[in-house]
């Protein structure tokens, strides 16, 4: 296996190096990748959407169909992990459990310094997450990053205190539906655009609701709306994945 792996690896590596002989100069402004479609994005995106961060503009407007499915990927992963870890144990595992019963769930003793530090850190982390979400139009950031930061703040809570205490404040019945609702919100905006007579996820359709807004600003607002949906799903899924992975799916013991 090792020898086969080496052979395969060097084959792939060699082929990739051979391919590089045929590339345009690496940072050439005139290469096809940086001229054909890319120039249109750079020169038109701001004019059409009023979003200075071109990455946000393309991510949540030009290619928002991709982003919708990316959110779905996150939701799918959350659901799959939930399914896998909640399965009943197989016969072999049950036998092992009766032969060597597991020690009581071990948690580290609670540490007042750590807890205090987390108390202090928790609100600014949330605030930063929301800032990253809303300021994604003007600086690096956006729905995914904000979602991960928000999710991470809850993970921090779960690590510093114990998992059960965190779950009593943020119970599974609350964040599990949120994973689905975020995706539903994103798709819902697309459907609203569709019902208002435009193509799916064409934010111009929303102008019928927000009257008196320029076509550029409605795109800007549309981007913010879908990013909110992304944030909800991502933060809930990140926390759900953590709680399930760390407790083998039974939510009894934390890190």
């Amino acid at each position, binding site marked *: 296996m090792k020898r086969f792996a080496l052979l395969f690896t060097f084959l792939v590596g060699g082929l990739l190096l051979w391919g590089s002989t045929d590339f345009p100069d690496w940072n050439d402004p005139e290469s096809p990748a940086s001229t054909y479609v890319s120039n249109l994005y750079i020169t038109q995106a701001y004019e059409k959407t009023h979003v200075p961060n071109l990455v946000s503009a393309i991510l949540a407007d030009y290619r928002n169909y991709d982003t919708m499915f990316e959110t779905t990927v996150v939701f799918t992963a959350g659901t799959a992990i939930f399914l896998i870890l909640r399965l009943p144990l197989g016969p072999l595992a049950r036998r092992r459990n009766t032969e060597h019963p597991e020690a009581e769930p071990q948690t580290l003793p609670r540490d007042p310094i750590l807890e205090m530090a987390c108390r202090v850190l928790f609100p600014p982390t949330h605030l930063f997450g929301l800032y990253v979400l809303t300021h994604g139009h003007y600086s*690096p950031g*956006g729905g995914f*990053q904000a979602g*991960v930061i928000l999710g*991470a703040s809850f993970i921090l809570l779960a690590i510093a205190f114990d998992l059960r205490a965190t779950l009593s404040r943020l119970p599974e019945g609350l964040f599990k539906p949120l994973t689905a609702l975020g995706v539903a919100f994103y798709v819902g905006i697309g459907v609203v655009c569709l019902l208002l007579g435009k193509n799916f996820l064409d934010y111009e359709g929303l102008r019928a609701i927000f009257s008196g807004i320029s076509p550029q600003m409605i795109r800007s607002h549309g981007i913010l709306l879908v990013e909110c949906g992304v944030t909800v799903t991502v933060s809930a899924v*990140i926390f759900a994945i*953590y709680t399930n*992975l*760390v407790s083998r799916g039974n939510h009894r013991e934390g890190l």
Partner: protein
Amino acid sequence: MTWVLDLFLLLFIAGTAVAALESRCLLTSSIILGAYSFMMCLVYASLGAVDVAFTEAAVGAGAGTVFFLATILRTGRKTSR
């Protein structure tokens, strides 16, 4: 003189990649993988991809490492290979 720093960074990244794969302790491996992710962020950022760097720092180095740690805590951290 930035090329010295760049070269050092790239060598260090390749080193951490190998170390993460070859370490005997899975806990060490996953922490090194976190370091690897963080240094990849530096490379992305120096290539001008600030959004990618941000996402990699949050998702790859942050959440990914925590997931690895959670799993290793619940399985085992030693490996003979």
